[in-house]
């Protein structure tokens, strides 16, 4: 069976797109071939800066002939129907066969699709793949209409077997397929013909192209680590950079160079970021000093002077770049040592979001909330507030302006330079965490308070102005912020009623959003509500308490319909509920990844679910319980009880809720259930009180056997109405007791 080799040779493909493009070529090409009937043994795709290649092994030489039988109209059908069928099938009358069926004599046709040679199919599929290639960005060039990532120059396409290779002939937008390609742009020896994949790969290597990106990456890493090792140093690992650099060269030549002495005092992260972002250099560390002292650059060619000119040039560019970084660093340190006041002042003129105001206003809100949250994370309130006040200061620094990805980290350096406490400096860096599902949550208590405050302020802010994420659109990364809050609470084992802080922060946003038009009295009242929320824990209570207090005052602000206070009072609870539901949705996604079903969480949301930590503990216990035999049976028993009860309640128009009396119990099973419920009820209540959900589940598990036995032996709908009602009330006890643990009606299955 023949092998297929394809190479699409173009001008330089962006490094970040190469791996994906090679995979897309493989997938689309092989899918197309298989769909056309050409199966194959194996396929491998490759990419270099100037080419995508695909090698398909053991391809069918031609697609199989396909016979298809089609049922036509009845033999006595109108002539028009028969003609229509013949037209559709591309046949004549003679090709038809009559067969008797239960519905009478019917025409049948056998259509034969003859197999086609591989070359014909390959040409067709490849043309299609090229025209519809999913590049993230594509372009036209010259006078042509074809789109590719950069101008496409040649297409190599051959089918090879023991008998030799033949070109698969086709043409696309002026490019004719051939069996030739070229090697390295500078070190290659011009175009050459190839006869198979092995020949292709070997000829490329001779012309200084390593086809396989993984092989280039390996070579770079080996050579870099060897050179570093020989100098007693080590290369800082960076897989993303390695993949990128492997996509920038066809013939990697690793060169190690020195970083000027005057730059070695820069923070290692600054050196690393500057070298990586601007120059694609690897950092080389001295394990003894921990400093980054050298760099590794990867050239795309060998030279007679063994890279001396290339290295000197790179070193010069690096010096210019690091001079800039050093200039920023020194300027920044001066401002940091003076207390960062200049930066904080600047933030008064920087807009965070048009409606939500300046960065300075945002910082003030976060500081206030961080102070409130401090006792929960175990931080000193004053320190949490102080940390929040300086945590964003580095946004004004020159270094962060130049390298935004260093935000937070520079904040830590600058806070240290300003002589602030270590916990505060640490919070400057950690409060952005976790940045994604794989990023750690902050460790420090102060960091946690600021991180929670920052994220909650952002979420409540965008909820207050109704800028919530929709579908795939989440420009302010609100989902990530919510997940961050969830993870800090869960991984930090923090206990807090989330809605208390959401409510307070929403009111704070309302103050900011209405600052211009609100009266002093109104602002003061809103401030009073915030204080009251912190004391009482709920917005509704706080709001009414403050409103009641206002009645006694002569100078009270307007609280009538349409007044600011009334609007806030009406809006905040709804927004707060909506945001808490958003947290629950994110929590479900988060826990689903850890194997906890969403309906189990729903079952535990009955009392609001504002304490996420407790919610999860309860859901985990319930999830574990439902996986046991007892749990599953109890659930069935509960559902049965609930169904019977619901039907009876609907029919009778009453709610059966209490009054079950053992004296009307007729059977042993009935009596046993009474006894079991009497025993379980206080046990469950006590366990729930202690938040010992496992114990509550265990107590509930002990109900399984008596409930099963009850349903086995007892007919609830007795003819004796007293007995029937008593039994229904007994079922109501089952329902009541179980619902105290969780809303089992939410559980599916």
């Amino acid at each position: 069976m023949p092998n297929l080799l394809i190479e699409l040779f173009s001008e330089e493909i962006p490094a970040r797109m190469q791996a994906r493009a090679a995979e897309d070529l493989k997938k689309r090409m092989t899918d197309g071939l298989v769909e056309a009937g050409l199966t194959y043994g194996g396929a491998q795709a490759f990419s270099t800066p100037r080419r995508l290649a695909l090698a398909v092994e053991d391809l069918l030489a031609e697609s199989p002939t396909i016979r298809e039988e089609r049922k036509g109209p009845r033999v006595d059908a109108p002539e028009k129907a028969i003609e229509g069928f013949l037209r559709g099938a591309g046949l004549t009358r003679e090709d038809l066969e009559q067969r008797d069926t239960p519905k009478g004599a019917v025409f049948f046709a056998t259509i034969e699709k003859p197999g086609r040679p591989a070359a014909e199919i390959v040409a067709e599929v490849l043309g299609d793949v090229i025209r519809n290639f999913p590049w993230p960005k594509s372009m036209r060039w010259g006078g042509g209409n074809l789109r590719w990532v950069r101008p496409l120059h040649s297409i190599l396409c051959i089918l090879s077997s023991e008998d030799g290779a033949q070109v698969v002939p086709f043409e696309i937008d002026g490019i004719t397929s051939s069996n030739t390609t070229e090697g390295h742009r500078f070190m290659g020896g011009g175009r050459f013909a190839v006869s198979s994949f092995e020949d292709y790969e070997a000829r490329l290597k001779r012309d200084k192209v390593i086809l396989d990106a993984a092989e280039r990456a390996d070579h770079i890493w080996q050579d870099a680590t060897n050179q570093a090792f020989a100098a007693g140093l080590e290369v800082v690992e960076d897989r993303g950079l390695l993949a990128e650099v492997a996509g920038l060269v066809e013939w990697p030549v690793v060169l190690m160079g020195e970083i000027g002495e005057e730059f070695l005092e820069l923070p290692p992260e600054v050196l690393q970021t500057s070298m990586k972002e601007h120059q694609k250099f690897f950092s080389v560390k001295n394990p003894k000093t921990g400093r980054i002292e050298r760099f590794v650059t990867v050239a795309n060619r060998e030279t007679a002077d063994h890279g001396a000119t290339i290295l000197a040039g790179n070193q010069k560019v690096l010096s210019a770049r690091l001079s800039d970084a050093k200039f920023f660093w020194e300027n920044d340190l001066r401002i940091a040592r003076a207390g960062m006041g200049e930066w904080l002042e600047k933030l008064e003129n920087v807009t965070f979001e048009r409606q939500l105001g300046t960065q300075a206003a945002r910082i003030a809100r976060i500081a206030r909330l961080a102070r409130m949250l401090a006792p929960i994370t175990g931080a000193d309130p004053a320190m949490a507030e102080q940390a929040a006040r300086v945590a964003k200061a580095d946004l004004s620094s020159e270094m962060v302006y130049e390298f935004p990805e260093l935000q937070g980290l520079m904040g830590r350096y600058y806070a240290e330079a300003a002589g602030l406490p270590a916990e505060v400096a640490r919070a400057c860096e950690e409060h952005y965490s976790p940045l994604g599902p794989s990023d750690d949550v902050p460790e420090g208590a102060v960091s946690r308070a600021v991180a929670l405050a920052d994220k909650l302020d952002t979420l409540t802010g965008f909820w207050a102005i109704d800028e919530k994420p929709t579908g795939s659109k989440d420009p302010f990364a609100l989902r990530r912020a919510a997940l961050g809050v969830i993870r800090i609470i869960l991984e930090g084992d923090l206990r807090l009623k989330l809605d208390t802080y959401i409510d307070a922060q929403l009111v704070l946003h309302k103050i900011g959003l209405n600052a211009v038009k609100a009266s002093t009295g109104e602002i003061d009242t809103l401030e009073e509500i915030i204080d009251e929320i912190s004391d009482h824990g709920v917005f509704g209570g706080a709001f009414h308490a403050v409103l009641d207090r206002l009645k006694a005052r002569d100078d009270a602000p307007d609280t009538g319909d349409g007044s600011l206070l009334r609007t806030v009072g009406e809006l905040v609870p709804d927004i707060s509920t909506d945001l808490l539901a958003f947290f629950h949705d994110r929590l479900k996604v988060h826990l689903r990844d850890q194997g906890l079903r969403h309906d189990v969480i729903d079952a535990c949301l009955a009392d609001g679910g504002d304490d996420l930590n407790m919610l999860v503990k309860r859901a985990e216990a319930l999830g574990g319980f439902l996986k046991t035999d007892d749990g599953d049976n109890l659930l069935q028993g509960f559902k049965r009880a609930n169904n019977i009860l619901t039907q009876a309640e609907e029919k009778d128009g009453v709610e059966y809720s209490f009054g079950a009396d053992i004296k009307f119990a007729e059977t042993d099973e009935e009596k046993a259930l009474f006894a079991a419920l009497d025993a379980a009820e206080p046990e469950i209540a006590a366990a729930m009180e202690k938040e010992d959900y496992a114990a509550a589940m265990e107590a509930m598990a002990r109900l399984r056997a008596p409930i099963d036995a009850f349903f086995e032996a007892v007919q609830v709908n007795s003819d004796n109405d007293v007995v029937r009602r008593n039994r229904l009330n007994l079922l109501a006890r089952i329902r009541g007791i179980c619902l105290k643990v969780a809303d089992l009606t939410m559980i599916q299955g």
Partner: protein
Amino acid sequence: MTSPTAKPRSFQEIILRLQNYWAEKGCAIMQPYDMEVGAGTFHPATTLRSLGSRPWAAAYVQPSRRPTDGRYGENPNRLQHYYQYQVLIKPSPPDLQELYLGSLAAIGIDMELHDIRFVEDDWESPTLGAWGLGWEVWCDGMEVSQFTYFQQVGGHDCHPVSGELTYGLERLAMYVLGIDHVMEMPFNDPDAPIALSYGDVFRQTEQEYSRWNFDVANTQVLLKQFEEAEAECEAILEHPTTDPKTGRRIVMAHPAYDQCIKASHIFNLLDARGVISVTERQAYIGRVRALAKKCADAFVQTEAGGYAEA
């Protein structure tokens, strides 16, 4: 590839070699546009001529001004006035990369010793409503040129596509000549009877313009000039296509485009004066882009823009 050429010795020699090289390759060697612009792309030989179906090949030096980059002549490589070398060929020839590499060889960059790389860098000009795909070209890790295939200009799809090359001349020359501070770069032959450095020619003007750009330019006057240029651009394009005096069809795309360039430069000056807030900035850029689009619309209604009388 190309055999090593003797190293050039001055800034002007590098420019002259580029001129000769691209002249040999068939480009019309044009002169700088006689207005203040921020980059060589603004020259109508690029912006307007990249539109429409008629072939075009031009190369030129363009003095360019970026008022915010002024450093009083003290920064080793930042200037508020500098030179760009610009090449525009439509349709982009299949060997444009090789032609470009030939130009590097012509100014003394030995391909056998240096590492030349094409690194992804897509180009977008919000003020011109233009974008393209291409690379920044690295020589030993140093960006020496921009290489772009224009896809859209003034809101119009480019068909055929132009290939555009832009060389930052001072930076490139400093690299080739091995100079660390732009002001120390020989402008003419260092052995000439009157040898002049870049600083001899430009240090004083850098100081003068830095002061004027940052602190002195009359913002009230500039704001007024911006409005006037904008109004004039629009007014020019509102005239009927037939000239009442000659009876000919004359669409005044170029005079209108001059006003667009003027507005763009005045915006840059206002920006350097720090009187434009972040939100206003977007609005100003949008206004210039609207002018550029109208000029592009007008140009494709001209003969040079491919318009043919039905």
